[in-house]
């Protein structure tokens, strides 16, 4: 039960309010850009559920993301716009179904072996779209008609898609926050710390983990759907392990064990990339943007053991020389 301390609540309210107001001041590209980050944030949240709250390090999250995205393209009619009312649940279900299959098998393994089995299943999905004509092969396929619902919610309009994504981001966050304080979430927290103890107390831990895995896969599928709708284009690289890796990096960077960590991580990771890529700031050295990003990440690991979410603590410590506990987990 994460008691929402006042600081955290204030942060979240400001954060989401900021996102809601942002399109009023932003240009067309800004809206696009933040839509993308919000989609990554949803994806990061899905992984945070597994890694941060159940201790299952899934190295194949991109597969569920990709299945959601390919689902959106392949299930859409060729010559007309689909209604997202059925398309979105269909994509989520497709991703969740694959998660059921992957989870049922891979949860038999533990630790690093689990990491690698999830990777293996993700690579299988990757090669299916990469090496077969099913999904257009290596060049990917286009979504010609973006889904909508009459004219009211037409997802081909950037602003509509922005708020649509924002709603789902908030929904995902709130859903997970509620989930984590329920019986189900508490059991997951117990499993993360000591699964043996949970078994001894009478919990059948496997169904809990599997349910978490499916939930996570479904949310990743939701993110995939949104991504396909945003770009109107899907490519096998959406399922590559590089994305799975980048997601892990996001949530670790943000701070494991906190839903906000996933939000902060997704935003920070992409902003840092853009920052170091910026010609305006770094001139011709911007082409070596990975150097700056790499050094920043190393500095984060060295100085912020809790991830960026520990930054306020760290600053406070530097300023006042004492430790302040802001992130008390339990009540």
């Amino acid at each position, binding site marked *: *039960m994460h008691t929402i301390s006042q600081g955290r609540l204030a942060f979240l309210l400001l954060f989401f309010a900021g996102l809601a107001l942002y399109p009023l001041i932003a240009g067309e590209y800004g809206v696009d850009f933040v839509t993308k980050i919000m989609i990554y944030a949803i994806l990061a949240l899905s992984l945070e559920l597994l890694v941060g709250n159940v201790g299952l390090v899934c190295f194949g999250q991109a597969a569920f993301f990709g299945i959601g995205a390919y689902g959106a393209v392949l299930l859409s009619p060729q010559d007309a716009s689909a209604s997202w009312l059925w398309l979105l649940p269909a994509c989520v279900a497709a991703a969740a179904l694959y998660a059921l299959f992957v989870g049922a098998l891979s949860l038999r393994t533990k630790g690093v072996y689990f990491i690698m089995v999830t990777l293996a299943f993700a690579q299988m999905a990757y090669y299916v779209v990469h090496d077969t004509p099913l999904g257009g092969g290596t060049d990917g396929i286009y979504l010609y008609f973006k889904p909508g619902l009459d004219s009211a919610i037409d997802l081909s309009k950037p602003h509509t898609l922005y708020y649509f994504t924002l709603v789902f981001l908030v929904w995902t966050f709130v859903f997970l926050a*509620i*989930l984590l*304080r*329920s*019986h*189900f*979430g*508490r*059991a997951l*927290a*117990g499993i993360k*710390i*000591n699964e*043996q*103890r*949970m*078994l*001894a*107390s*009478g*919990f*059948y*831990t496997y169904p*809990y983990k599997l*349910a978490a895995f499916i939930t996570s896969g479904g949310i990743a599928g939701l993110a995939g759907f949104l991504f396909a709708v945003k770009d109107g284009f899907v490519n096998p690289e959406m399922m590559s392990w590089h994305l799975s890796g980048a997601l892990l990096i996001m949530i670790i960077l943000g701070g494991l064990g906190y839903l906000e960590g996933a939000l902060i991580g997704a935003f920070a990771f992409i902003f840092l990339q853009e920052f170091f890529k910026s010609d305006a700031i770094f001139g011709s050295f911007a082409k070596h943007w990975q150097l700056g990003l790499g050094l920043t990440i190393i500095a984060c690991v060295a100085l912020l053991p809790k991830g960026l979410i520990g930054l306020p603590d760290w600053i406070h410590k530097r300023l006042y020389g004492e430790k302040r506990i802001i992130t008390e*987990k*339990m*009540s």
Partner: protein
Amino acid sequence: MTTATPDILLQGRDITQRWGGLVAINQVSIALERGTIHAVIGTNGAGKSTLINILSGEITPTAGKIELLGKDATRWSQPRRARHGLGRSYQRNTIFPDFTVFENCRLAAQAQVHRPWIWWNNAQKCKISVSSAESAITQAGLTEATDRPAGLLSHGQKRQLEIAMCLATRPEVLLLDEPLAGMGAEETERMLALLNNLKANHAILLVEHDMDAVFRIADKITVMVNGSVIASDTPDQIRSNADVQTAYLGAH
């Protein structure tokens, strides 16, 4: 509760455990009755912890039979046994250090709740698990520490919490693996008093190294050497048993 026919809650018959060629447990039989504390003693490596692991369902034995409350539980998984009244504690602390004492117990009690999939209700408002947790905490004498994070408790309190987490699942049989390990004199006294209280309604298996405590509190003592039972009797009889003296107490 004294009855003419002993109320046997957990029974293990001819349990054998082999690891490759090594026999860790050799044809051990044991019966736990309500209202008694049954201690198992033996040197390190005698197979005491393995026995607990087998009885609680963590390990499936190579051979032998286990009955829990009169039902054949040999093939039951650990959670199933736990749900049928078997509670165990561990030699090393298995408490959740970030959680409060209360939450530790509430979480354990939650295992008994029948609809764990309801994801929209706040677990802390669940009446069943809350009341189980509260009574377990009271029984274990941790009322004052209810809201403290478990990681900040003293060692003795942590061991008490370990027992409280067992009690929260409302077990009938308790398998306790060295609950007194590392305790000071005062803490030991508190724990022994607690065990004495629990004995009325539970069948307790106690694996313990502290001989003074065992002989003070146990109703029955089983002595294991190299995986086999060499004697099983009342404390007085064990004390005077020649085999036990040479094999175990003599070396003490």
